[in-house]
């Protein structure tokens, strides 16, 4: 995992597993205070209180298919490596995972291809609503599947080929503006 966008893809899978119908992914790059914050908030069933200290243990998993669960373990390691911390708030109404990293830390991975991550989430789980907010100091980019659904009208699923193409363009353009013109399609 050498991109933050892959950690995000991975952690959102937990939200989907937990039956979430809404996931908010927020990235705040606060350059002045040297903070890179990733937060993933969902309305899934939450993590039971007695397990909250177990979730970062790589040998703990709720799945039955194998004995290891690495998602949050890797996220916790990432935070340790980058002079940051992992904060998990959970109740039966949902979970919020925050990964706080030192922005300028030599070991902080780049954001990577966040367009690909979002595209897969939106197309691969069309029943889940996603909001993506990315702030760099005072600039902000927001992508909201709910808005897109109402713009397209009722009953148009977001995993149709023509819609996917549109989403990809939308994301690439928005993020490229945010990053000051960097091109995502290379």
């Amino acid at each position, binding site marked *: 995992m050498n991109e933050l966008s892959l950690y995000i893809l991975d952690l959102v899978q937990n939200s989907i597993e937990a039956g979430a119908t809404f996931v908010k992914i927020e990235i705040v790059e606060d350059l002045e205070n040297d903070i890179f914050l990733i937060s993933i908030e969902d309305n899934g069933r939450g993590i039971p209180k007695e397990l909250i200290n177990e979730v970062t243990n790589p040998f703990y998993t709720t799945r039955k298919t194998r004995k290891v669960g*690495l998602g949050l373990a890797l996220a916790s390691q990432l935070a340790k490596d980058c002079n940051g911390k992992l904060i998990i708030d959970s109740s039966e109404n949902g979970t919020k995972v925050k990964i706080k990293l030192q922005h300028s830390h030599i070991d902080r991975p780049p954001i990577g291809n966040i367009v690909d991550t979002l595209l897969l989430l939106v197309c691969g789980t069309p029943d889940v609503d996603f909001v993506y907010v990315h702030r760099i100091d005072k600039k902000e980019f927001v992508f909201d599947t709910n808005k897109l659904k109402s*713009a*397209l009208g009722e009953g148009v699923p977001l*995993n*149709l080929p023509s819609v996917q*193409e549109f989403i990809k363009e939308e994301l690439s353009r928005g993020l490229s503006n945010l990053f000051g013109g960097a091109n995502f399609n290379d």
Partner: protein
Amino acid sequence: MIKSIQELEEIRKKALEELEFRKQQGEGIRIVVGMATCGIAAGARPVMLKFVEEIQKRNLKNVTVVQTGCIGLCKYEPIVEVYEPNKEKVTYVKMTPEKVSKVVAEHIVNGKPVYEYTIGYEENKEANK
């Protein structure tokens, strides 16, 4: 964030046509990509995107790509399962974007699974080592 209303209207029209086609055709092909930590680390993201891209490019209206959690065979990731109505499921292992092109061309379009990418082939190979 949204383009011009006119553009959106065009996309909407196209999308509704695609939707109508899906409804008429009944259940189509489902491609499921394993997207747990192991899958992601093994490169499932580019694999799934390649499927999405190929399906767009070839205008295959009746094929959907979805993701799922852990399929339980980490050493074979990235794993892709292809479900066709009234046919046995085909499980592809150790997928790469290059392999995806072949799977789409031979299996999805022409209905002939690519045997040398399947889990059966892989397991035989390991048994005969």
